[in-house]
């Protein structure tokens, strides 16, 4: 499962690149294929998990039905949108790292951008506090 998610993240980075978004593609490789996957692998290694039975338990049938209904709703709604959409010629598009930086550091997003650093710091402190020995 971990390897599958890794390949999915890496392949998505290629698709982002093909969609003309080199900045997001690089971010995808660094954040997902790099940081998050390593975090998952690290936890799997740390916990030394045994192979557990993954048989569906009580209520799995109901949960499965709910999930299938939700997925069907999603596909119906998005399918309706996609059918009605008329794809015209793609407009000119410049998502270079320079343009992204100009937008991220513009007054519109500057404070949100700075707030993310506080979010990351809070997540850092929270993760350390949660994973500490005595809780």
């Amino acid at each position, binding site marked *: 499962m971990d390897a599958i998610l890794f390949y999915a993240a890496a392949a998505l980075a290629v698709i982002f690149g093909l969609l003309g978004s080199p900045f997001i593609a690089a971010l995808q490789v660094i954040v997902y294929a790099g940081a998050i996957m390593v975090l998952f692998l690290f936890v799997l290694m740390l916990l030394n998990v045994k192979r557990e039975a993954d048989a569906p338990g*009580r209520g799995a049938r109901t949960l499965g039905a709910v999930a299938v209904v939700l997925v069907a709703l999603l596909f119906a709604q998005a399918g309706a949108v996609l059918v009605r959409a008329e794809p015209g010629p793609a407009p000119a598009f410049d998502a270079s790292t320079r343009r992204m930086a100009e937008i991220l550091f513009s007054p519109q997003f500057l404070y949100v951008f700075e707030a993310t650093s506080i979010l990351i710091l809070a997540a850092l402190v*929270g993760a350390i506090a949660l994973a500490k020995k005595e809780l």
Partner: protein
Amino acid sequence: VDQASFVQHAVLLSLVLFALGTLGVFLRKNVITVLMSIELMLNGANLAFVAFSRAAGTLDGQVLVFFVMVVAAAEAAVGLAIVIALHRHRDTLDIDAFNVMKG
């Protein structure tokens, strides 16, 4: 690559990714697998953002993807720390074993 149809295919792929993530969240019983499925759903949403940003020719979607990635990283860090704490208390990763708050 023909960008217009490529955008449509990318949106379809994002739907598939999100659906697979949803099914994983609902059907899997291992906490770590459920967390991975959530990451897959976030990836699908990101792909939709990028595809529609490409189709519209604006960069707002890309900025949104940036922030989604930041939140995903924070979520993974805190979520995995919670998994470690849970495993320490119950010695299992079975999602049905954590039912103290169940009414």
